């Protein structure tokens, strides 16, 4: 039982208890994988009473992990139990941020200020940072500023800290540390207990996070379905209204003038086209997601295509759309998809920058090919919405209509062509959306 003797040996060394401000590494072999067998836990040297207490402790500490708590409730419950079982003054869980470079205080008992101030510890720095970087438990018998980067730990008057990495599926997802306001050592069975539960805590946090992410995804999909239904109902209202009107008129007067009938049929046709376009957008996203958006690229003059597209689709807005199209901008692109990109970008400006002037330009760029740019001098996009403009199922202000798929589809089409899509926001206001297509080889 080499593991067992190492654990016990480390914890009983004098230097681990007092006289040093250096964190003392503790062996990691016990913690992963967390098996409840006595051998794997290194409990051969434990008495029957110790073993009984250990098992009880493991059961007590991991019980919340089996329930369907959200991450905050789960962590709070775990910390409370850890504090009670180990008789410590503080229990803190820091979780890794998305970048994987910082630990952020997520929940704390007895050290609530750490969470309120959103204390952030870089991986590799300070007590918790070192535990995450070294992926092993550390014991700090004397808390001082030479070792800890978080001044709160010193201000609180903590005398000793014991910390352990939270590892799930091979990744460090956080750090759990417990602290004492009086000098103390941690016994082997206490460390063993903490190690035994740490992986289960990590797995429980990971599961809860996944559950929350799944719930958010379901909510986003429900919201999308609701938006899609709303958007489809609007043209259906027009279509159904004209159909009923004509039915009524023709029933009342079979000699209804042809002009009236043609006008109604025209409106029905426009509404049906709008419905078709909304359904195509939904299908495009489905095709993109399963990798089935096929392109039929040909050499084409993007300037000519954009001019024709704007004239055909945006005639009612002609007075506020300026074209600045460089001749000879030949690209290799699928004409239908390139037209779709142009429609999406101009439509986006027309709808979101109501009344503003729009400049649609095309220029050749040595590095990036041919650049289609749509610039408006409207109100711009709120800063918090900018990072998600090209995301799926994202729509800006609730006052604007549409499925919120246009920019996502645009970016996907550009990238499938080997180009790119981006948005910038000039200081003077407005928005600039750009899509590049690779130049055709001549």
């Amino acid at each position, binding site marked *: 039982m080499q593991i067992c003797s190492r654990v016990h040996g480390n914890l009983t060394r004098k230097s681990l208890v007092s006289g040093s401000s250096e964190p003392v590494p503790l062996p990691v072999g016990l913690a992963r994988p967390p098996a409840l067998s006595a051998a794997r836990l290194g409990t051969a040297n434990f008495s029957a009473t110790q073993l009984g207490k250990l098992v009880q402790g493991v059961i007590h500490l991991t019980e919340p992990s089996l329930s369907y708590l959200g991450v905050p409730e789960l962590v709070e419950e775990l910390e409370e139990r850890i504090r009670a079982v180990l008789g410590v003054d503080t229990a803190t869980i820091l979780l890794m941020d998305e970048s994987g470079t910082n630990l952020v205080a997520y929940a704390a008992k007895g050290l609530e200020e750490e969470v309120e101030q959103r204390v952030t510890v870089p991986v590799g720095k300070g007590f918790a940072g070192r535990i995450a970087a070294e992926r092993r438990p550390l014991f700090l018998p004397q808390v001082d500023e030479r070792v800890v980067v978080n001044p709160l730990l010193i201000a609180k008057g903590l005398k000793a800290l014991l910390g352990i990495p939270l590892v799930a599926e091979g990744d460090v997802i956080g750090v759990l540390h417990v602290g004492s306001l009086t000098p103390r050592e941690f016994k082997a069975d206490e460390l063993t207990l903490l190690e035994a539960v740490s992986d289960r805590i990590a797995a429980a946090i990971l599961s809860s996070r996944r559950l929350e992410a799944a719930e958010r995804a379901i909510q986003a999909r429900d919201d999308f379905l609701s938006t899609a239904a709303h958007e489809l109902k609007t043209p259906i209202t027009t279509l159904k209204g004209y159909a*009923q009107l004509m039915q009524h008129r023709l029933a009342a007067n079979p000699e209804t003038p042809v002009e009236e009938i043609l006008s109604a049929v025209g409106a029905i046709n426009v509404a049906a086209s709008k419905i078709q376009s909304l359904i195509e957008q939904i299908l495009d996203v489905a095709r993109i997601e399963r990798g089935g958006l096929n392109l039929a690229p040909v050499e084409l003059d993007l300037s000519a295509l954009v001019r024709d597209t704007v004239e055909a689709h945006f005639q009612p807005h002609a007075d506020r759309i300026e074209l600045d199209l460089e001749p000879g901008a030949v690209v290799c692109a699928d004409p239908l998809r390139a037209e779709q990109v142009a429609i999406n970008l101009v439509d986006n400006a027309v709808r979101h920058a109501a009344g503003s002037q729009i400049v649609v330009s095309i220029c050749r760029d040595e590095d990036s090919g041919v650049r289609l740019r749509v610039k408006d001098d409207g109100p711009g996009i709120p800063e918090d919405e900018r990072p998600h403009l090209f995301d799926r199922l994202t729509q800006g202000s609730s006052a604007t209509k549409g499925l919120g798929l246009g920019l996502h589809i645009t970016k996907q089409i550009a990238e499938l062509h080997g180009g790119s899509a981006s948005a910038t926001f000039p200081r003077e206001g407005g928005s600039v959306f750009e899509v590049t297509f690779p130049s055709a080889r001549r």
Partner: protein
Amino acid sequence: MSRARSVLVVEDEAPLRQLLGELFREWNITGYFAKDGVEALAILSETAVSAILLDMRMPEMDGWQFAAHYRRRIDCSAPIIVFTAATDPEARAREIGADAWIAKPFNLADLADLLETAIGGHSSVSSASAVTKIQ
């Protein structure tokens, strides 16, 4: 001065405004048309109407904002009928204290009946607290 049988339509979809214009001619209703709340308030500052048919999601000033402005006016006696494609139109109507609601898409007969009630029995509709369920 209140204009008999007049309805203000606040709706950002041009084809729908056009359809309602045709229906109003058929039903002998004078229609006023605004593409958002701002235009609607401008019309109301010059003209009294018998009822307001109000879409909720619009650019510039939406249905919620319009209703709040409208309620602050001295003359806000014309009943508001919420006209929406939302999943729960009754909830939208309650949110703004509207007098009635009708879901999009609608049947012409239902809209005609609702407008007749609103215009014909103006005072009884505007004083009723219950939301009229149409579809």
